């Protein structure tokens, strides 16, 4: 009982902090619901197989090879074989994160594979999937779990990219995505 209560507190805090930095936060019951939501979001964004309209999805543990085939058929313009050119041309990038931090609304990812970074830097919208069970309280709690000896690139993402370099006016969307949608997925196995 306590554990459930605690985790719902973590979810509330995560949602509040992520929304405070202009991320959109959704929560779904399971993997299937998550994939359905991604498809809906891609359709809303008008993803198709025309130039400048594609979507790229970096290989993620929750999406099986069979899922990939179905998803690519369902959404024309969506590609799992991520290249630099496809990512630079895509509207939307999708990836799965390894941890989420309740105290700051951050996402944390083992991002050594370059496709994970391409999909979350180049497209203007980034959809990030993360297991609700991968929520941790705060920065120190994740730092103590990360293994820098065996991971060449660790990424922390907190909201979409931003700048306040002109007159200190906050502007969302600088060199990275201008929109970040976070989908918390319940009942999903936590990889590491």
């Amino acid at each position, binding site marked *: 009982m306590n554990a459930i209560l605690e985790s719902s507190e973590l979810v509330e805090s995560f949602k509040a902090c992520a929304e405070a930095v202009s991320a959109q936060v959704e929560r779904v019951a399971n993997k299937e619901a998550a994939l359905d939501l991604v498809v809906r979001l891609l359709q809303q964004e008008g993803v198709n197989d025309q130039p400048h309209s594609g979507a790229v999805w970096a290989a993620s543990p929750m999406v099986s090879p069979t899922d990939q085939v179905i998803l690519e058929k369902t959404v024309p313009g969506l590609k799992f074989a991520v290249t630099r050119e496809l990512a630079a041309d895509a509207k939307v990038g999708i990836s799965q994160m390894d941890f989420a931090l309740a105290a700051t609304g951050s996402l944390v990812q083992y991002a050594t594979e370059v496709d994970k970074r391409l999909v979350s830097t180049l497209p203007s919208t980034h959809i990030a999937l993360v297991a609700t069970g991968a929520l941790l309280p705060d920065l120190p709690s994740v730092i*103590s779990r*990360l293994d*820098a*000896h065996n991971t060449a690139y660790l990424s922390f993402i907190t909201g979409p990219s931003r*700048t306040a370099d*002109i007159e200190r006016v906050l502007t969302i969307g600088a060199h990275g995505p201008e929109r970040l949608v976070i989908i918390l997925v319940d009942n999903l196995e936590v990889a590491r």
Partner: protein
Amino acid sequence: MKKNFKESIIEALGNSSLTGALGNFSVAYRVSRAKAYEGIDFEALRNQIVTIKSSAASHFDELAEKFAQAAEAKGAKVFRTDNPQAVTDYILNLAKERGVKNIVKSKSMATEELHLNKHLEKAGFEVRETDLGEWIIQLAGQTPSHMVMPAIHMTKEDVAEVFSEKVEEGQAADISKLVKFARGKMRPKFLEAQMGISGGNIAVAETGSIVLVTNEGNARLVTTLPNIHVAVIGLEKLIENFKDIAPILTALPRSATGQLLTSYVSIISGPTPNTDGTPKELHIVLMDNRRNEMSHDPQFKQALQCIRCASCLNVCPVFRLVGGHVFGKVYTGGIGTILTAWFDALKESDDIQALCIQCGNCKDVCPGKIDIPALILELRRRLAVEQGLPLIQKAIFAVVNNRRLFHTMLRAAPIGQFPFAKGRFIRHLPMFLSGLTDGRSLPLISADPFRDRIKKIKQPKCKEKAAFYGGCLIDFAYPEMGEAIVKVLNKAGIEVIFPEGQTCCGAPARYSGAYEVAAQNGVDNIKALLDEDVKYVVSACPTCTVALKEDFIHHLTAVGRTEELPEAHRLSEKSVDFSTLAYRLIEQGRLKFKKGVEPTKFTYHDSCHFKRTLHADKFPREMMKQAGHELIEMDEADMCCGMGGSYTIKQPEISAPILERKLVNIEKTGAPLLVIDCPGCMMQIGGGLHSRNSDVKVRLTAQMLADCLE
């Protein structure tokens, strides 16, 4: 002071878009910083950071070696050098050898130290700063005015003009459009670049990791898209253990921009795969440029605890008026003054160190707990040793150090000032002294100093005695304040004596870097004040109290007069400021408030030393409330009034607008009464209010208590 430096200050002060932007930011920053630190024990956090960073600074060689081994084991190349030119050569050679044409850079202050862009461009490479602020100033041919917000001195109109002139005509002064424009123009540059250059916010020896903290996403692109990544990192960014990233990452965004975390943090530990499948060529340059030497300087080692958040700039009353460019080309503000003295040259800090008003705001917010004001004083002292004091100051100190002469001259003053006096103030002084009375009247030098008046006060004979240390202002300008103090202490059964041998507290000499003079002032005062056996040595001037409690010890230590130290410590233990003592006496029941005191609304100004060195700011507020008065807090109550001892004489152009802002904040409260605990602030603020014909009355806490105690 060089003439062009003075001109640059006056120009900055006259730039209303600069002072407006910085002024507004400083207000917003206070709020957002406080909010970001909610629920966090800042003292505990910064103590953790101090432990991590100071231990690293004690072992730079060892950590650099450990870092190099760890990073190289993962496949990175690590280049270590103490020669800044060698860093530039290394990068130039690498770029040439690899056939690089286009380079993208994310923000790196270390490369600013090298003026790397200039060298790369001269060698024919296209170099793009990708951080928006850095790109703007690169296009405009300027240098960063702030470590975190390099283009804060420019308006959107300025930016639109730079973009239109240098990139594409017809850009409108619309911030979101300007940001989109920059994104669009920069994107192909990221994609075509063969080399990315970054800085590093932290370097971890244990794992060979570098940590990059950014908001715009440019550092992720710089470290992902080009096949070669060069990170240039100052030695002071080294820490030993990976877990120690956490406290630094907790403080850095909160202190820098009031964010819980920046949009992106990247931790890179060794080469990653490129998009073409090859492993990235990762070069990490650990740059010394006198950091190692600094780590062996017992005073300046602590400056290596800096995490480059720039909060010292954001809270500085002077920085928000003059901006960064008057400080020089690379590092700006309080910490920038110190870094310039080291990474550039001591003499380069000669003018800029004088900008510091010694209010101590920066010391309070520094996540590395660096005593920036003290280090700036130390620069001043070393400059004075190296270059000697200006003649006029030498003449003044010759007088100050001769107690009899000093007091004779002060006594002679009432006669000389007569033609300019109006009531109890001097409004206009002639010729070169006129700056002193711009926007502020000066108090008259009393013809009847406190040292004479106290002899006429009939005091009860008491068991307990206190020696009163007047300081120049109470003794010679505000003797009635001394009378109020005697009255209050007598009510508590304490008799007050005024040791005649007391002299200047040494602050003017200290703040000019003349420690020998200050130390002699200390010795004279110690002898005078400990001559008779008293329980307390009381002062109502915070600067004087700090001198009695701390500075005498510090000066005597600094000049090696250790035989005087035991007595200095004895004096320190007895010394107390008036309000702290009064509060204790009230708590002990030795002082009681009268019933039926007419309640008054008042506002309170925190004097810098009183709050930030003596930590006594709660006592006067509490005593005034207990007396029945109603406190209306002003905005920025603890912001300096611009007095800063002789600062008001040396930098009148800066002191005046600081005072102006204080006066506006006082008047905005609508309170008819201002209470303070410093005769220097009394002189500055009281004079300012008088010159504006304001009805607000100014009183010392001591004067208020004298009227409302039984």
